[in-house]
């Protein structure tokens, strides 16, 4: 049925890369022209950082089937590594410190991925909590990481690549966008490659995967490494482009759960899903606070907002798990198919 629908749809005749390309062009050309600083600072920058983190976690959890609650730890590792590379190595280009920080996050990911060689599912998820607590502890405990700053909160350096300064909200947006576009493209290439198919094979049946000669242990650790690399770079964007400060507090367990929710709501094993999920997670509290303020006036203070956010979000996740386990992506595809069919029959 679905196969027939796609064959009939005129969209199928268009090349697959067209829609993403148009979207990217729109993000580069139109949005900087029409956006205000609220859009960049409050919506697009956190959206981009969380989307990228979602893409990273989706590689590990959605594709390779290894549940992780340590995403925020890898973000923190990336952010602090980039800060320290930038601080301690004179003249190191920003791009190099981003790549190096991704590698640091990847190394930490491999270490905390080791339990996955023995543990599965719930037990693995619990063991990844170790990463979460250990990294946060180490970053608060050893002030060397934050250059002995009294508050533990440090300013991120200016963003410049090859002499070009990414100043102001728009500049930081374009910087984040570029990093996200490049890494997302590479992630897409990965998940459609032999290695990506090996991830799926291990997720769907690891005994069969081992029997046909997929190196299961190596592939699992590779998934941890690549996923942590991407999440680490997402942490750099979060700290350098969005918050402009680097501090451990923002990378707590709540953040790890947030990223997990992004891929559950958006759609597991889908790159688009990470973006849809992140969009929902970022926009939803803003909408809720506007709506609450509008309906309840002063009664709707930040405490009520926080609580209602958690309740609605919790309900949403349960609803998705029950009604649409394949996430917003599946919903989106279904609606689009309906529309094309309706359009054809009219």
């Amino acid at each position, binding site marked *: 049925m679905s*196969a027939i629908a796609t064959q009939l749809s005129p969209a199928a005749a268009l090349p697959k890369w067209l829609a993403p390309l148009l979207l990217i062009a729109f993000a580069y050309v139109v949005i900087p022209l029409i956006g205000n600083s609220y859009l960049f600072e409050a919506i697009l920058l956190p959206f981009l950082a969380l989307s990228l983190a979602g893409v990273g976690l989706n590689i590990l959890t959605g594709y390779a089937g290894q549940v992780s609650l340590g995403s925020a730890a890898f973000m923190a590792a990336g952010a602090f590594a980039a800060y320290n590379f930038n601080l301690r190595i004179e003249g190191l280009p920003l791009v190099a410190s981003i790549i190096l920080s991704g590698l640091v996050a990847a190394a930490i990911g491999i270490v905390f991925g080791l339990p996955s060689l023995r543990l599965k599912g719930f037990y693995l998820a619990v063991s990844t909590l170790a990463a979460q607590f250990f990294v946060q502890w180490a970053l608060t405990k050893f002030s060397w990481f934050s250059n002995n700053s009294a508050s533990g909160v440090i300013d991120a350096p200016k963003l410049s690549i090859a002499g070009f300064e990414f100043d102001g909200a728009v500049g930081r947006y374009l910087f984040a966008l570029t990093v996200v576009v490049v890494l997302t493209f*590479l992630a897409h*290439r*990965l998940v459609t*490659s*032999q*290695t990506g*198919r*090996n991830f*799926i*094979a291990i*997720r*769907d*049946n690891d*005994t*069969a*995967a*081992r*029997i*046909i*000669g*997929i*190196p*299961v242990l190596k592939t699992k650790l*590779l998934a941890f490494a*690549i996923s942590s690399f991407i999440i680490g770079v997402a942490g750099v964007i979060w700290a350098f482009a969005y918050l402009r400060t680097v501090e451990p507090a923002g990378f707590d367990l709540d953040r790890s759960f947030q990223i997990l929710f992004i891929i559950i709501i958006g759609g597991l*094993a889908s790159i688009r899903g990470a973006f849809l999920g992140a969009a929902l997670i970022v926009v939803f509290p803003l909408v809720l606070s506007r709506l609450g303020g509008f309906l309840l006036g002063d009664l709707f203070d930040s405490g009520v907002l926080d609580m209602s956010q958690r309740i609605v979000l919790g309900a949403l996740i349960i609803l998705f798990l029950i009604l649409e386990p394949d996430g917003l992506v599946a919903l989106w595809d279904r609606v689009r198919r309906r529309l094309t069919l309706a359009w054809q029959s009219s």
Partner: protein
Amino acid sequence: MPISNHAFGTIEASVYAPEIFAQGLPAAQRQAHGDRPRQLAAEDAAPLLALEGIGLSFGGVVALADVDLSVRPGEIRAIIGPNGAGKSSLINVISGVYRADRGHVRLYGARYAQVPTQRLAHLGVARTFQNLALFKGLSVLDNVASGLAYRTRSNFAGQILGVGRTRREQQEQRGRADQVLEFLHLTDVRDRLAGTLPYGLQKRAELARALVAEPRLLLLDEPMAGMTAGEKSEMAAYVRAARDRFATTVVLIEHDVGVVMGLSDRIAVLDYGRKIADGTPDEVRNDQRVIDAYLGVASDNEEGAGI
């Protein structure tokens, strides 16, 4: 055990159906041996696989007790027995999924206490599972191509960047997968997600994934379980055609005695983890212990073509 004469008749007919043999297959170097296996099996060739004194228990449950088994090159070797007799355990020991408590496995002369599962594909052994073990989230084509994953030489970075041999490697693997899909008449469903196929086709796709590696030894754990009579005879035809085409040695677990009798060269019978009989279909059919333990009342089957 009910035996369908009709089904058995169809096997005979379709095994020799010319269109199956007419399929072009990649194993050019093996085609020369196309008609050798039957002859070899009849002779006293050195065993390709031998189990020696295998014992295995789970807690108090004895799954296998002192089982010997030898498999000659090119033969179709069936293992039958009632549920819980230890058939799957035996295949799991051969493929290294289980480690036997006692005894060892001899594969092409090499002796193993536990067969190294991660090297199984390199050793030329492929298997299917009693319960479906396809990768649900991959297309049928990708499932079958994954049977060649052990040969992949490129690494993830090369694959992301699409440099060097990766493109050629992928094309070659998909090309071979396509040939096997055609051989097993799965081309129509090649792009569907494996998890969305009906049961019988999933079983066949799993056979395709095992065959694409052109294994020297193919282990099939109830490949026809849950199939209709028609599907069973089709599957039996594919198994035999695969053996003849690839010169693959087959170890086959099957419940349907009718299918087994027609398909196999030799049959071992397990009961409560012990081997109670071993021989040609004729010998096994007339073995009193087998009749008592497994085949039930022999007179029921007297007029059956398969038994």
